[in-house]
């Protein structure tokens, strides 16, 4: 094959690519408004009926401002399902979720917590023995009353790292030696996994609310009672500033059913919790 033939072949390929590219670009550009309108309609279906029509009208009216900006329209359209989910959540509507996803999430919670407990069983035993030997008259687990799913009262377990308190007016407390070691190794919350196995907690979810903490049960927090509280939570991480997401996003992620214990989300949440704990942000 001569170099001339190769050059002609390359040129032909380039021309074909340019023609197809231009045709496709025109086709895509032309269909973006329809695509964005379809996205807006689909997003509005997630909203409660009192909000759906108003938001659909708003979004379609604003699409008009993007008529000559196809890429911005695409970006705008992509965010609408998320916007609808968040608005529905803020308005107190339950988001649609399949039973299969709920079952998959529970299966994930049980299998991961069982696996971690089995793997850390020797450590668990040593910690329990050390606590018992250190203070014979105290229980191994501390159970604090929290609000579970549907407002049920649950006893969230953690190791009973007894604190020695001194003083009368200003009480100063510090953990015992074993307690301090457990706290330093982030093992105090390990018995939370028992709550996960019992179905009282999820691995990831909204923070468990204190019983009678009326100030916490504001409108935005009521949704938290619809799902199992989490052993770790994005909300706590967002408050601690350990993750860069808004508090609304964090709460939406914690409260979303059938999604929150996704493996990647769980690993990311655990990693962020570990980072926050190391930085002493108390997440």
């Amino acid at each position: 094959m001569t170099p001339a033939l190769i050059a002609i072949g390359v040129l032909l390929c380039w021309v074909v690519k340019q023609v197809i590219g231009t045709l496709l670009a025109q086709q895509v550009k032309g269909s973006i408004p329809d695509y964005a309108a379809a996205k807006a309609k689909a997003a509005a279906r997630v909203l409660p009926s009192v909000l759906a029509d108003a938001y659909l009208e708003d979004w379609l009216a604003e699409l008009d401002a993007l008529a000559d900006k196809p890429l911005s329209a695409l970006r705008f359209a992509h965010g609408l399902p998320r916007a609808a989910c968040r608005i529905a959540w803020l308005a107190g509507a339950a988001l649609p979720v399949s039973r299969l996803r709920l079952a998959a999430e529970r299966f994930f919670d049980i299998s991961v917590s069982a696996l971690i407990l089995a793997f850390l069983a020797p450590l668990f035993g040593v910690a329990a023995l050390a606590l018992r030997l250190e203070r014979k008259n105290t229980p191994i687990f501390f159970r604090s009353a929290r609000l579970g799913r549907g407002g049920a009262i649950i006893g969230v377990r953690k190791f009973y790292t007894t604190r020695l308190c001194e003083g009368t007016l200003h009480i100063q407390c510090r953990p015992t030696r074993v307690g301090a070691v457990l706290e330093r190794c982030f093992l105090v919350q390990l018995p939370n996994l028992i709550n996960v196995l019992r179905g009282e907690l999820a691995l990831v979810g909204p923070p468990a609310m204190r019983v009678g903490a009326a100030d916490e049960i504001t409108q935005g927090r009521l949704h938290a009672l619809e799902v199992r509280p989490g052993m770790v939570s994005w909300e706590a991480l967002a408050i601690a500033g350990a993750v860069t997401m808004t508090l609304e996003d964090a709460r939406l992620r914690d409260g979303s059913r059938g999604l929150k214990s996704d493996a990647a989300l769980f690993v990311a949440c655990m990693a962020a919790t570990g980072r926050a704990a190391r930085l002493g942000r108390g997440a």
Partner: protein
Amino acid sequence: MPERMTKPTLRLLAILLGDPSREWYGLELMELADLPSGTAYPMLHRLEADGWLISTREEIDPTNEGRPRRRLYRLTGLGEAGTRRAVGERNAPPTPVRRPTLELPHRGVTA
């Protein structure tokens, strides 16, 4: 007042505060604050529910203008005062964070 003033919320409010008497539509605010639509619209919804914003439907004749009527947002008195305060706090030097007090020992299930 919003439960927690996040940076994106403050960014959006600062734009509204730039001209408190002006009315803005959602897309305009979204682009100026450089927020995705998935964040901007819920934020506007929440701020309106908190009484920081008020929204009205644009008063135009769609046939004359050749486009549909948009929803317009502007700051309320409460929102304007709150935003000024939040912007002031954000510019103030940071205060040391106090660690939460430790729990006292309890036996069994406790509140």
